[in-house]
């Protein structure tokens, strides 16, 4: 493997891993803020117990999201220094703003929330969790606008071989970002909903009778959040894919593994065999006629360009061969392959949708089966609910893998209606001064540490789940002389 391959694997592994923690943090912290608000408004101890329990799980996960996030900010410079130089005028801004506006608020107010129980006035303490969770939402917005600029560069002119920023407003209101943000937020709530639903169902199955109210309410919250999140995911996803057909036609043709232009274009539900064959039609099973045309343009007869036709167009626009440059290694002077890895994009797209639908279906079923405070006796119900937690996580991961692999071979995708010349091939983005051995060292070490910490996180979460409400509610103070004892300490 050369430097480029290792750097790509590293970015993929660290980013997918980071994005296991992020949606749970974003979704769950906002849900916990709502729980604490409910406690503050009603004084009902049930909501306090929910805040404490789900808040504890949120914090266990939060720590991992924070520490793996630092790697993200650094690795553009470490592994992708050519990329950083090329996009520096645009890309660093949202990152710096994210740190200054979002991370400071998030980390400071989360510290205040963790340690501020009984020390801060109740409304102030409640405001702290809102500040921290809204700041993590804001950070998602800034990073998504940076990512969206890579998918669809706007707000720039092209000077001296580099994009020069002319409007930060255009970058922050990039229609790609405005579509990606609600889609990602809905995906985060889907994760939080399934998490609540699965764990609460498991606790009810285990007959945690003392706190039945707590688990039941959590389960219902989880169910409704999942259903609402799925509706939002579907609507925003539809908006996003229509946009993507215009902005990155190759990505969407690859999502379907559409080898030849079709009019009207059909949508395949699944395929048996290698979808990257030149006669891809023959491996696809259960195709829905004209559905792809509908997904792209809301009609049933429009033409959708296939990978072959698009490749010809891309070659004419963006060149047929990589430049001759020793830094490009094996790719130097070679023809550019404009087709993403079709099995990855095709299946990534289908798994994303499939896992999302599965999670939503499970939530609807759960809400139906627990109506009027009933809970099914069959143990498989709780087992499936617990297993179902994985579905929205997998949908998020496969969705990101699809969208990031779908823009290859570009790291900065050309904007078809934007400024000429602003695009970058991934092969040109990698650091020049870093050897494959160094890159491999970091890939191995990060993967090992991340793997070990994943085990620890899952272990801790399951321990706290088993401990239930009793494990997170503060012990009663023994006497008044203990008044100085902290409400919480590490």
């Amino acid at each position, binding site marked *: 493997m050369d430097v480029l391959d290792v750097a790509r694997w590293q970015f993929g592994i660290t980013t997918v891993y980071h994005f296991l923690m992020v949606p749970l943090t974003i979704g769950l912290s906002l849900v916990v803020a709502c729980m604490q608000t409910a406690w503050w408004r009603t004084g009902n101890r049930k909501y306090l117990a929910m805040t404490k329990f789900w808040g504890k799980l949120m914090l*266990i996960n939060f*720590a*991992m999201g*924070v*520490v793996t996030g*630092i*790697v993200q*900010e*650094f690795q553009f*410079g*470490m592994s992708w*220094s050519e990329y*950083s130089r090329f996009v*520096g*005028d*645009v*890309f*660093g*801004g949202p*990152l*710096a*703003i994210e*740190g*200054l*506006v979002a*991370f*400071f608020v998030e*980390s*400071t107010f989360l*510290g*205040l929330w*963790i*340690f*501020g129980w009984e020390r801060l006035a109740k409304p102030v303490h409640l405001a702290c969790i809102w500040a921290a969770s809204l700041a993590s939402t804001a950070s998602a917005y800034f990073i998504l606008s940076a990512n969206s600029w890579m998918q669809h560069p706007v707000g720039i002119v092209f000077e001296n071989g580099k994009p*020069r*920023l002319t409007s*930060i407003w255009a970058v922050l209101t990039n229609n790609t970002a405005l579509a990606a943000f609600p889609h990602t937020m809905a995906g985060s709530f889907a994760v939080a909903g399934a998490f609540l639903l699965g764990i609460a169902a498991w606790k009810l199955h285990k007959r945690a009778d003392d706190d039945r109210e707590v688990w039941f309410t959590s389960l219902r919250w989880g169910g409704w959040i999942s259903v609402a999140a799925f509706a939002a995911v579907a609507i925003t996803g539809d908006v996003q894919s229509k946009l993507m057909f215009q902005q990155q036609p190759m990505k969407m043709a690859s999502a379907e593994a559409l080898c030849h232009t079709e009019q009207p274009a059909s949508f395949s539900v699944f395929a048996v065999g290698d979808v990257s064959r030149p006669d891809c039609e023959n491996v696809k099973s259960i195709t829905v006629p004209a559905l792809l045309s509908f997904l792209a343009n809301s009609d049933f007869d429009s033409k959708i360009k296939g990978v072959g036709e698009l490749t010809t167009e891309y070659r004419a626009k963006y060149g047929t061969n990589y430049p001759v440059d020793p830094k490009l290694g094996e790719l130097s002077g070679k023809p550019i392959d404009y087709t993403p890895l079709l099995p990855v994009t095709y299946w990534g797209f289908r798994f994303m949708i499939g896992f999302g639908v599965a999670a939503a279906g499970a939530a609807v079923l759960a809400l139906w089966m627990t109506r009027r405070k009933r809970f099914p006796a069959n143990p498989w119900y709780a087992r499936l609910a617990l297993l179902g937690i994985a579905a929205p996580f997998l949908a998020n991961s496969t969705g990101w893998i699809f969208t990031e692999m779908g823009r290859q071979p570009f790291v900065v995708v050309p904007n078809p209606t934007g400024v000429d010349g602003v695009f970058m091939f991934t092969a040109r983005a990698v*650091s020049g*001064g*870093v050897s494959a051995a*160094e*890159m491999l*060292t*970091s890939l191995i070490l*990060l993967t090992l*540490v991340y793997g070990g*910490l994943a085990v620890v996180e899952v272990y*801790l979460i399951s321990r*706290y789940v*088993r401990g*239930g409400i*009793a*494990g997170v509610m*503060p*012990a009663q103070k023994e006497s008044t002389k203990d008044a100085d*004892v*902290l409400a*919480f*300490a*590490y």
Partner: protein
Amino acid sequence: MDLPVVWFCLIAFLWLGYLFLEGFDFGVGMLVGLLARDNDERRVLINTIGPVWDGNEVWMIVAVGATFAAFPNWYASLLSGSYLYVLAILLALIVRGVAFEYRGKVDSLRWRRWWDRAIAVGSWVPPFAWGVVLTATVTGLPLDRRGDLVGGPLELIRWDTLLGGVALVGFSLVHGAVFVALKSAGDIQRRARQFAATIIPVALAPVLGLVWVLASRSGRGVVFALAGMVIVAAALAMQRLWTGRPATAFALLGAVIAGTVAVMFGGAYPNVLPSTLDSAYSLTVWNAAASSYPLQVITWVAAFGAPAVLIYQGWTYWVFRKRIGTQHLPPVHVP
């Protein structure tokens, strides 16, 4: 004033904030293994920084993010050029952050021991590696015409960069001990003060050495004046500590690190990362900077954002101003 110069100063200020605030966090982490005698004392130490360490770490994240935004070429060359060192920092910070959060979540000796090791690694490695990397950025690396490192990772191992690493470790250790003396109560407080008073000459010697080396390399009067200020502040801090005044000593240590950062960056100016191969390849405040429009944007954001950060972080320290002793710790209550 020109915006690249403003941002050069702001980035130096962010590093100062980071080294001052995380300096004592790192020191406290080092003392968990050095000074505490039992689990209660270790918990006292960790809880002196419990609510604030994460916010302190953000100073580094913003320093690096601001470097990306304001000086993309500096960001790209420095982080790729010091790849393995930055990797060490990242790994150490990962295990440290998780350790603070997870250590108290299971009541088992073995569990805590593992996290104590993680806290030790996470508190000794980053100040040392940052010392190496920051000294390298102000004194230079063998960069080619593209700004890429030539010669591999061992190019960063030089006596001056190692001195920089030891200097930040020494500073953090004594700074953390003084912080514990101010924030804890009981026996651990007394021992922290004694420890600080004992090690301060050894701990600050490499800082003074680094400052002197960098000042004499730059040869500028103003940098020498700053170096002189560092030496005076260090001497006063020592004297205050020996006469039992840790609060003023703490403030004076702040002056030491402020002066040190000023000597480092001020001595390098207008370079941000000189090339030791050819000065034509050196990255400067001018050729590494982003264009003026994005600099204006982040200046506006910083103009409103930075004072707000200072206010609410200051408020956090006020909320958690009380000293912590073993008698204040709640009993371990975990599932």
